[in-house]
């Protein structure tokens, strides 16, 4: 049980993590609420609209779980502000194309990634309260990811979505902090944090890469969306070039 003992700094970090998650889930409530209306207006399959409707309630529950966890680590979460859930997509996209872009970015990419991260965090976590929280949220994230794949499949059946192939790099860039690709020295693994479900940057980067290569790209390919540009963006050499370019601009 010694591994479960936290330093004050680790406790603050974990409180911050769960507070961040609470705010992130709060934003997701508003995003799914808007998407539910847009999907219904676009006459998406009934199952997809139903999943979006369920997701609104799921995310609200997640906010409460995450805020409770943050409080457990001594961090109070302020959610009084109006959650921002602005539409996303490249400027040239309109109507159904923009909606499809957002659903793929949010559900196929981000929610699939969240499911992978939580699966791994659950495997490392030893603290019962953390495990319970992760398990409860993970069960819902599966449905949120499926929503995206179901809608993409329906739109592909209508011949839509070829444009996604070229936009994959920007979609990936928006879903990951570039700092994760920083060639930093490996940090010592903090076993106490791991026991509380917190994964190191290296582990998180590995999960991101694996999820893209083994889940998202094959999923897109199976639905006839060319994932080559996304795969190229993910190549280690390309990541290092981006990092070097970013540094030179500072």
């Amino acid at each position, binding site marked *: 049980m010694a591994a479960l003992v936290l330093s004050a700094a680790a406790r603050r*970090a974990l409180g911050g*993590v769960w507070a*961040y*998650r609470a*705010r992130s889930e709060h934003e997701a409530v508003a*995003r799914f609420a*808007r998407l539910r209306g847009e999907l219904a*207006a*676009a*006459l*998406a*399959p*009934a*199952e*997809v*609209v139903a999943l979006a409707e369920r997701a609104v309630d799921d995310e609200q529950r997640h906010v409460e779980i995450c805020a409770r966890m943050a409080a457990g680590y001594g961090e109070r979460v302020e959610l009084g502000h109006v959650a*921002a*859930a*602005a539409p*996303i*997509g*490249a*400027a040239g996209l309109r*109507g159904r194309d*923009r*909606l499809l872009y957002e659903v793929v970015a949010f559900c196929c990419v*981000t929610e*699939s*990634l*969240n499911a*992978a*991260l*939580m*699966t791994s965090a659950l*495997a490392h976590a030893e603290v019962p309260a953390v495990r319970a929280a992760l398990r409860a949220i993970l069960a819902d994230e*599966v449905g949120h*990811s*499926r*929503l*995206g*794949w*179901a809608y*993409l*499949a*329906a739109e592909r059946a*209508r011949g839509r979505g070829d444009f996604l192939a070229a936009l994959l790099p*920007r979609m990936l860039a*928006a*879903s*990951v*902090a570039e*700092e994760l690709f920083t060639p930093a020295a490996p940090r010592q693994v903090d076993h106490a944090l791991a026991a509380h479900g917190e994964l190191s940057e290296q582990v998180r980067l590995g*999960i*991101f890469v*694996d999820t893209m290569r*083994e*889940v998202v790209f*094959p999923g897109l390919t*199976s*639905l006839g969306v060319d994932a080559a540009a996304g795969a190229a963006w993910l190549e280690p050499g390309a990541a290092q070039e981006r990092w070097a370019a970013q540094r030179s601009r500072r």
Partner: protein
Amino acid sequence: MAMAKLFKVLVVGGTALAALGPGCGESAHKGDKVSPGTGEDAELRVPDAATGTPDSGIVLEADAGEDADGGVSSWLHWF
């Protein structure tokens, strides 16, 4: 991590929902179709991005306007 399992649960499970569920334009209630030719109908309901004016009473309201795809927070970058 068993990514193959994740692929099966998320991607295969998701696309199966589209294949097995009611078709586009059909309500969740059996036999309660919204209208025939729904693909085209849906296209008509998409508002013109420049004016924000929908072609019907149902508004597909959101338009990204400027490039705006940095807004989705994942659990990946939580520091």
